[in-house]
């Protein structure tokens, strides 16, 4: 016994596709892909997938802006001063590895500080815990910003593999064609030999 309502009927567009098998052009085209922002179940979503920067999320950024992958010019020792604002030093081209290592060391220092604070002034833990969570957020944001680079590197790898496979296929086809030509010539000679 059905106590719930039955399913709604399918949309009536199926009538437009009645002649699709005979004439594919008589039916309407599928709708074009969505561009820009679109609403879905009351919420707006955007089609552009971009990692929001830390400032957009309201988190202080601890590593210098303008990190370029693979360039390591100077060694910079990251000293975390509590009142230091966002560092806009795009001239400092640091590579991701140094930044990650520096953040790791800072994290360890902060954990030690937290242990000390808990021993001596237990009521002031909140600030330290906040700093530690800030470092974690920076770490994860750095790692996430490496993903586009990884995607491009994967694409390069796939293209190289594809080119290699295609070249291999060309070689195979050439070889087989030559083989076939050779066999045909041989068979021609044999036939001529028989008929003479």
């Amino acid at each position: 016994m059905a106590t719930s309502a039955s399913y709604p009927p399918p949309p009536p567009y199926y009538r437009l596709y009645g002649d699709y098998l005979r004439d594919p052009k008589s039916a309407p085209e599928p709708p074009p892909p969505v561009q820009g922002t679109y609403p879905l179940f009351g919420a707006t979503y955007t089609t552009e997938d971009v990692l929001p920067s830390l400032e957009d999320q309201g988190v202080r950024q601890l590593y210098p802006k303008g990190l370029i992958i693979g360039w390591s010019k100077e060694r910079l020792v990251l000293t975390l001063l509590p009142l230091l604002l966002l560092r806009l030093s795009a001239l400092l081209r640091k590579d991701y590895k140094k930044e990650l290592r520096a953040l790791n060391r800072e994290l360890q220092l902060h954990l030690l500080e937290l242990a000390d604070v808990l021993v001596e002034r237990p009521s002031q833990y909140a600030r330290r815990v906040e700093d530690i969570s800030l470092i974690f957020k920076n770490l994860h944001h750095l790692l996430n910003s490496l993903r586009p680079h990884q995607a491009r590197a994967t694409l390069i790898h796939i293209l190289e593999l594809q080119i290699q496979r295609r070249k291999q296929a060309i070689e195979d086809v050439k070889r087989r064609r030559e083989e076939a030509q050779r066999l045909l010539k041989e068979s021609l000679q044999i036939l001529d030999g028989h008929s003479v």
Partner: protein
Amino acid sequence: MDIISQLQEQVNVIAALSFNTFGTLQRDAPPIRLSPNYPEPAASLSDETINIAEQPKLMSAALVQAAKQFDVLVAALPLSEGGEEAQLKRIAELEAENEAVGEELQKQLEAAEQELRQVQELFNQAADNCLNLKKPE
């Protein structure tokens, strides 16, 4: 798992170790005397106190080990030269080469298919001739 996921996993492991460390130490710490007005708290000497003395060493060793592992993973990152523009340039070059190689493959395939059709046609003719030359019994 790819290296970036491993790094992210390692960060989470460090976070888990750190809050487990502090949580365990806070939970198991014996009471301490805060002011001279109050008597000393009863210090119970048993297996638990021995364990409590060992735990910070073990847990901090684990934490430092995890941090070293993170450094090892960071060193293993294969970050190539140049950055975004160099990668995009390389992708464009590879696409052009792929296109050229694809056209050559297409040509070879078409030539091979044509030869195949010719050979099949010749076989058909030869078979017909054989059938026609055969004397009817």
